[in-house]
């Protein structure tokens, strides 16, 4: 029989026992709704958690160190020393000094090389220094850190009040909400009033000591001599506060414990004293050496490839991608449990389909006999019952998705009302993606077809002579 005829006959048969078939379809709908409701909860929670983590800036970064983490032989050395020197603490246990792997420092040349890798937005060191912020006649000693201009497009500064820096080298600052609150409390104004205000920052500045007149830094390196070193003096800058940021986005992957954020290009020109400066004096490399670099990647999905490429270059690379993968695995296990519990209702509903179709065989035994006498093959009868099961599954699936989606909306609404009362920002813990809609309907049809296997096969096997005698 042609598909259209099959569907027409199936539709007619389903309409004939409307109440019973509607109840069966409703049973499937409830099963699918429960499945959709459970899974959309799991997906919603997973999406919420992953979005928050991604916004924290943890997952689109690769942290590069001068040697592979764990001290593997395949990597380079530890930074901070001269190009051909080794650090005792970087030696691999059990190997004589002459067999220790050479070390590869993270120089400014390496920084440029890393920045040219595919999918890398920028490579930057984390510059951090002690700062004394002066406003309204009082000082606040705190920590300032550099923020690469490229983080503008990430979720890390998604919740900034005010604006992000206007340019990479702008003399502007973003304050952490905590510091802004302290200043506001002392000056008796609102934290937001700070936006647009100019503040003074005092900080320790590095001032190089001039090299002997007849020697360039390269000559000094070539001769294996110590560099001339530097002195530290107090310096002062004036910056404009353009924004305030805080809450979850100020997590450890972002700007850590710093309370003042300044543009990276601006900070690099300040010559603020860094912890690793002391090593540079004794290492004397002839160019800037970084203890670590951070690579900003365009998409968390590219992190693994970049991490692998950095390791290939002989540097240590680390990202929180593995942690994200573990989290995803945890959610997958959680979703599996939800699927099993949600699927139980659908399994029960599928028994309803078996029951309905078995009843239909009893009722339509004579009709099946007539159809066979008129030329219906076993296959036609089987397909007819399959089509009926499939139509019930399809309708039940569509209805179930609608029920599940409505239920999710309702719970989301109720939850957000409650969160609102608790002064917590609203959350979307219930998410029904398109793929879940398609998968739920498809699964419903599949389960219904499987449930229709036995009745369809029984109907197809009916002996036409016996069936014709049955009244």
């Amino acid at each position, binding site marked *: *029989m*042609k598909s*259209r*005829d099959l569907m027409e*006959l199936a539709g*007619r048969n389903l309409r*004939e026992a409307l109440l019973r078939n509607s109840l069966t379809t409703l049973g499937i709908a409830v099963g699918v709704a429960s499945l959709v409701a459970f899974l959309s909860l799991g997906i919603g929670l997973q999406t919420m958690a992953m979005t928050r983590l991604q916004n924290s800036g943890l997952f689109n970064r690769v942290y590069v160190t001068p040697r592979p983490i764990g001290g593997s032989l395949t990597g380079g050395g530890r930074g901070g020393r001269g190009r051909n020197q080794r650090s005792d603490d970087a030696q691999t246990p059990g190997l004589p000094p002459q067999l220790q792997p050479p070390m590869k420092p993270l120089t400014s040349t390496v920084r440029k090389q890393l920045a040219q890798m595919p999918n890398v937005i920028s490579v930057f060191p984390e510059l951090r220094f002690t700062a004394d912020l002066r406003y309204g006649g009082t000082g606040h000693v705190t920590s300032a850190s550099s923020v690469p201009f490229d983080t503008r497009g990430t979720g890390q500064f998604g919740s900034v009040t005010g604006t992000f820096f206007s340019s990479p080298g702008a003399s502007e600052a973003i304050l952490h909400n905590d510091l802004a609150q302290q200043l506001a409390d002392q000056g008796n104004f609102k934290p937001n009033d700070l936006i647009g205000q100019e503040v003074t920052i005092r900080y320790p500045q590095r001032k190089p000591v001039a090299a002997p007149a007849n020697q360039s830094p390269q000559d000094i390196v070539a001769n294996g001599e110590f560099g001339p070193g530097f002195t530290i003096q107090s310096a002062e800058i004036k910056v404009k506060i353009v924004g305030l940021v805080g809450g979850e986005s100020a997590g450890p992957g972002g700007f850590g414990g710093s309370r003042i954020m300044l543009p990276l290009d601006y900070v690099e020109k300040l010559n603020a004293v860094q912890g690793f400066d002391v090593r540079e004096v004794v290492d004397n490399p002839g160019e800037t050496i970084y203890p670590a670099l951070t690579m900003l990647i365009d998409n968390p999905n590219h992190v693994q490839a970049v991490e692998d490429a950095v390791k290939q270059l002989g540097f240590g690379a680390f990202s929180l991608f593995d942690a994200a993968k573990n989290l995803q695995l945890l959610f997958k296990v959680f979703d599996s449990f939800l699927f099993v519990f949600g699927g139980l209702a659908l399994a029960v509903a599928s028994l309803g389909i078996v029951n309905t179709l078995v009843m239909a065989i009893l009722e339509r035994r*004579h*009709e099946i006999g*007539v*159809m*066979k*006498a*008129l*030329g*219906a*093959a*076993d*296959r*036609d009868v089987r397909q007819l019952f399959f089509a009926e099961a499939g139509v019930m599954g399809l309708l039940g699936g569509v209805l179930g998705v609608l029920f599940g989606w409505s239920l999710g909306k309702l719970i989301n609404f109720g939850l957000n009302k409650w969160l609102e009362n608790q002064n917590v920002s609203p959350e979307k813990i219930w998410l029904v993606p398109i793929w879940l809609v398609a998968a739920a309907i498809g699964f419903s049809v599949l389960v219904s077809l499987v449930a229709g296997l036995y009745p369809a096969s029984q109907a197809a096997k009916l*002996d*036409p*002579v016996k069936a*014709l005698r049955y009244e």
Partner: protein
Amino acid sequence: MTDNETNQPALRTADVTRHYSMGEATIRAVDGVTIEIARGEFVALLGTSGSGKSTLLNLLAGLDRPTAGSIFAHGRNLAEMSGDELAKYRSLTVGMVFQSFNLLPRMTLEENVELPLRLAEVDRADRAARVQEALKRVGLSARLAHRPAELSGGEQQRASLARALVNRPTILFADEPTGNLDSRTGEEIMNFIQQFNKELGMTVIMVTHEAQLAKRYASRHFYLKDGKLSSNGGAQ
């Protein structure tokens, strides 16, 4: 149909047997029957209740398979056909009329008559005309939208005849076609069947227990008793 099949009789059985097991007993419903029916013949299978005539009809119509022996329809052995081939035989070669009409009560007359066309996968565009043609032949073209319950017994049997005709089969099996009808309506139905036999050249095999009816319409009669042929189709 090939030339070889065209030269063959419409139906031929060779020692065909159909046994049923009932507990430890074996019922010999049809027991070694050999008959031959030429194309265009009108034959009657006669016998008392339980004589095996309906079982033989079911075997000839491809609704049942013989326990032993062979049944050839236009030279093709039904016993060797697959389930799908038998279904195709019932769909395209055979038309059936039953004592209890066997129209599907939930369908209209038009849908009932269209059903064999659906099963034979006839093009949708041709169906309406063929349904009309079949119903017109039995004088029911004005009752397309009626359900069987809204028709008299005679009309239902005429609709059943239209359904049997619609796929233009070459063999018509009629199992007690007048059994549920009064004599005047029965005669009307028998006239239609005779008309199909004469005008359309259909081979007709009719099961009946009414000897007078058989005598009036069939050219040969086969009498069955306890599953065996007691009279081998002598011409009347």
